[in-house]
């Protein structure tokens, strides 16, 4: 049995993932993730020495594209779904202003 995930670990992961979790959600998440990790734990006991990792199941290399321009989107279409279109761009809260 893997030890219960610490609250701090869950908070840290939630911050990496940019997910705001309430205290209650954090508690539930700690329990559920621990249960899942506990189940998964079994594979860590397998003898996998010398086994290459498989990140692609297909045997393809060099899928390359010729350096030929295509038509870009009209700007109105690019911005059509933007929550905060400003001056032909995508408005966001400024990264530097996140001090609070």
């Amino acid at each position, binding site marked *: 049995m893997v030890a219960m995930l610490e609250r701090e670990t869950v908070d840290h992961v939630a911050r*990496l993932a940019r997910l705001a979790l309430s205290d209650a959600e954090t508690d539930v998440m700690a329990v559920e993730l621990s249960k899942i990790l506990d189940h998964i734990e079994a594979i860590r006991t397998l003898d996998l020495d010398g086994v290459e990792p498989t990140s692609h199941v297909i045997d393809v290399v*060099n899928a390359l594209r*010729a350096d030929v321009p295509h038509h870009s*989107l009209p*700007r109105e279409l690019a911005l059509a779904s933007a929550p905060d279109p400003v001056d*032909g*761009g*995508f408005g*966001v809260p400024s990264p*530097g202003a996140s001090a609070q």
Partner: protein
Amino acid sequence: MSGAAVEYEPVIGLEIHVQLRTRTKMFCGCELSFGDEPNVHTCPRCLGLPGTLPVVNAQAVHYGIMIGLALGCEIAPRSQFHRKNYFYPDLPKGYQISQYDVPICGPGKLGEVRIHRVHLEEDAAKLVHVGESGRIHGADRSVVDFNRGGTPLAEIVTEPDLHSADEAREWLNLLRTTLRAIGVSDVNMEEGSLRCDANVSVRPLGSDQLGTKTELKNMNSFRFLAQGVKAEIERQTALLRAGEQVQQETLHFDPASGRLTPLRSKEQAHDYRYFPEPDLVPLVVTEAMLERARAELPELPADRAARLERDLGLSGERARELAFRPELGDFYEAALAAGGPQLDAVALANWIPPLVERIGSDADPAGSRVSPSALAALVALVSSRAVSQTAARDVLTLMVQSGDQPATIVEREGLGAIGGDDSGLAQVVAAAIAADPDAAEKVRDGNMKAVGPLVGYVMRETKGRADGGEITRLIREQLGL
């Protein structure tokens, strides 16, 4: 050990991001642009719209291989792209596609600096800060422009082989020259197509251990790079002298104030969670791809400098001056060819700086009114003593102004040399000795430094048309030496 002050040695490594001069972006067909209206070069892919997938630009790979070859790198037979995960508004997918554990180019060397690796990746978009101050800090809203987002980048990482700000600057110039010569990038620091970060640490001279390093970001010109690195070396040295520790941190260079300010530690708390990019397949550099890249490589600046030094006898410094500015090297070699085998290659090389001085230090001589053959002709006139060194400088000035041939100018302006067989010169020399007996006496006593005023007299009298060597010979002759 005595109480004498410890000497400190700076250790500097560079990380350079180079925008590649492809027509389209790294993973989509949007055209590269600079200075266009925001967000007119975007598509579902480079906006990171749901469901889109990257496809690697073959030309970017080709340029990556060329860079590797130019920097003497091992080219990886098989490399892979990874995802580098972090959130930032200029990063549309929430990850940057970059190369991680197996980059396209492994260890290499340029000049005296070892290259650690070169890898391919995509550039971030541009964030324009709108707010009261217009700077990151204090701005309340920013606007993202994805025109630049996805531009192909080669990231070049050096080993920590540099030991002063000037060395760093000089080496970066060699790198820039090399990249420009092979045509893979515009390498313009002001426009951001060449961007340099520096890792700086300081250690006691003679130590083989590395001190704690800081990372300097955003030095967007050669001057700022030298300034920033110098300031950081001084700061770290002062800290160590005072018995304090250097903190490992990232510093942001502010070109306006020339100051380095630490980025807040929260922003540094990165955990990029790299993993192999499942949307892309491995990159396998084939022999054919290598052949094509080799075939397109011109002579590299460092190789050209070595050749000019070795084959033509130029000084190392002169050879680098010509080779690192290919337009100068090209003009020089064209003049050399025009002048034929008799032409003195070293003498010709010495005429390039005066030419540059007269046409403007950044100008390409090929665009001036002086042709390579005209310069060669001028050097030939000097070598045959038909024109003195001093007069030749005036001739060159007139060549730059008029575009006329040197012989024509010499004739028109009466600038031909007054030689030893010309009775006039011997008389002027005699007059010089008569006018300054003290100097003549000193020369006679073996103090050859005293010959200066005598030569100066003759030069003035002949308006520079006499040859310095010939004047000295005549002075010695008339003084019975």
